[in-house]
């Protein structure tokens, strides 16, 4: 049974357990389950995007436009519901679709025009973030305060609880389940891996790799849309710069989760564990009295160390030997 679980995920679980024990010893309040569950609010957005960016990275691409799509969908939700006066749930749906369309544009240009993913999503990052700012500017709302005045129903979407469990935790689990099923239990998931391992071979074996690649960007865009709506509801206002700091945490979650940046290998369970580790790390360091602005140092180091850990073969064989003992 243990053998079936990828080694790296085991390391991640051990890290998570160690983290909870250590931070709990520093500050016993850390062992309060409610505080831990509530902290999901801060990183569920990162994790949701991370799941589907994992898809993109497995195919050998990269998507850095997620953060900007968050801002765009947040603004679209705000403008449609508050300025245009549409039903809130309809505007949420439309905003998520806008996120998907952004992903579709990325995907088509990358898969069919054959431009590098990095360039297109960089352009997309500027473009979608820019469109969000333009929309705010045209709607006449203040850029700094954003659009607020959402109904309590919408605010409760993420701030509410179901049987004591915060909605954001439920959203996290549901999205994890969806992405896990898609990636590991369906033919589509196998196609994603084959595309990432060798795109030419996949093409010759009859997989429409262009369609597969495009679809991963669409999923990543949709997930960014969901994260954008979630963040809008959580913070009770719509702003264009939501998510501008998300690039680094998303990629950290994916890469720390054991997904190879060159494609072909990885999984969403790792991404989920890694995003929880990073989220708890932030919470624990804050509760341990560390200032928020220094936390980037820990996360940056974690990113580099984990990647060198995964990338260098000697490192990996050492870990394997340690685990076998």
């Amino acid at each position: 049974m243990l053998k079936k679980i990828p080694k790296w995920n085991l390391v991640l679980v051990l890290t998570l357990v160690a983290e909870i024990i250590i931070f709990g010893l520093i500050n016993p309040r850390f062992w309060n389950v409610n505080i831990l569950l509530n902290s999901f609010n801060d990183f569920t957005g990162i994790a949701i995007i991370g799941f589907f960016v994992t898809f993109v990275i497995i195919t050998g691409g990269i998507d850095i436009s997620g953060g900007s799509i968050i801002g765009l969908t947040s603004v679209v939700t705000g403008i449609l519901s508050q300025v245009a006066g549409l039903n809130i749930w309809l505007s949420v749906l439309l905003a998520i679709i806008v996120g998907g369309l952004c992903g579709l544009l990325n995907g088509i240009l990358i898969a069919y025009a054959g431009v590098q993913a990095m360039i297109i999503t960089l352009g997309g990052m500027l473009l979608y973030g820019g469109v969000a700012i333009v929309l705010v500017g045209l709607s006449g709302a203040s850029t700094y305060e954003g659009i607020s005045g959402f109904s309590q129903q919408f605010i409760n979407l993420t701030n509410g609880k179901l049987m004591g469990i915060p909605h954001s935790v439920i959203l996290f689990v549901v999205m994890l389940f969806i992405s896990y099923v898609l990636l590991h239990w369906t033919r589509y998931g196998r196609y994603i891996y084959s595309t990432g391992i060798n795109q030419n071979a996949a093409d010759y074996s009859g997989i429409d790799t262009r369609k597969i690649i495009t679809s991963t960007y669409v999923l990543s865009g949709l997930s960014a849309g969901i994260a954008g709506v979630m963040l809008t509801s959580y913070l009770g206002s719509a702003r264009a710069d939501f998510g501008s700091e998300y690039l680094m945490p998303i990629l950290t979650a994916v890469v720390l989760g054991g997904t190879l940046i060159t494609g072909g290998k990885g999984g969403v369970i790792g991404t989920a564990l890694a995003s929880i580790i990073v989220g708890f790390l932030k919470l624990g360091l804050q509760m341990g009295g560390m200032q928020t602005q220094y936390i980037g140092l820990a996360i940056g180091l974690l990113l580099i160390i984990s990647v060198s850990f995964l990338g260098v073969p000697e490192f990996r064989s050492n870990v394997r030997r340690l685990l076998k003992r």
Partner: protein
Amino acid sequence: MPKLIGITKHREFRTVIFLVLIFLLVGIVNSGFISPGNIDNAVKSSLLYIVLAVGMTFVLLTGNIDISVGGVLGLSAAVSGTILRDGGSVLIAVIAAIGIGVLIGVINGLGVTKLKISAFIMTLGMNEIIRVIQVIYTDGQWVENLPTHFKQLSQMKIFGVNTLAIFVIIAVVLVHLYLSKSQKGRYFAAIGDNEDGAVLVGISVNKVKILSFVISSVCASLAGLVFVSQIGFISTTAGAGIEMTVIAAAVLGGVSLSGGVGSVIGAAIGAIIMSSINSALVFLKVPAFWNNAISGSLLIIIVVTDVLIARRANNKAKKERLNARVLSVHGEGVKLEC
């Protein structure tokens, strides 16, 4: 080979045409835009981006990427700014800035070559770390009250043209000659074009890669000095997000992210385009919030057109080669029969 050089020349030519078009079109709407005063201003405000884009080109040529330039710019600006504020000499400030650049460049380079971390992840993590170091160093404060003599360095003029601009332009031309004409300079593009081939030819690939990161970081720290001199104060977020603009500028100028193709002159022109979009919008009386949307869509449109044009040329060349081969085989066949 001459054909390849012809294509790159062609690419820069298009970038220049594009730049001239921007200036002409905006100039038609508002003639103030093409006045010598504004062109001088446009060059002056793009100096920072040009310096960064030149350094970035080295890394991009080898097929890597450097996200940490924004952080390096901020840290070197903060450190040298503090030295200047506390009465240190300009020379010490410059040495400190370059030292920071070399150190971070070496760390980046070692991480990418020895630890085999992908350049994107390595420099992204590095960027985050450097930012925190800057906050720790400045204690979260802005660096202000810089001596006026340093601020005036960027305002000096010779024959009515900004001295710094002349200096940077000469440097760009020299670097271009180094990269395109000298043997060592060609190594950078060779590695990006075909790394295994470069190893077989006897290039010490790792050394050149580390060197490229060092050059990029040193350029970023020099840009930090330009920043100190031009802006006059350093916030804790100085240079945040500038790396994406610089990469976009280099790509606009025809530098390929997959390595091997591009020139510093193209990157420099790309930098001028990116920074003049800002002032063009002011002259067109378009609200400033359009800035990112316009530069993003410009980047996408230009790159996609470029790739499509290149692909068409490639297909044509392939067809010609195939035809030539088929014909030559026929020729041999005829000979054998004889």
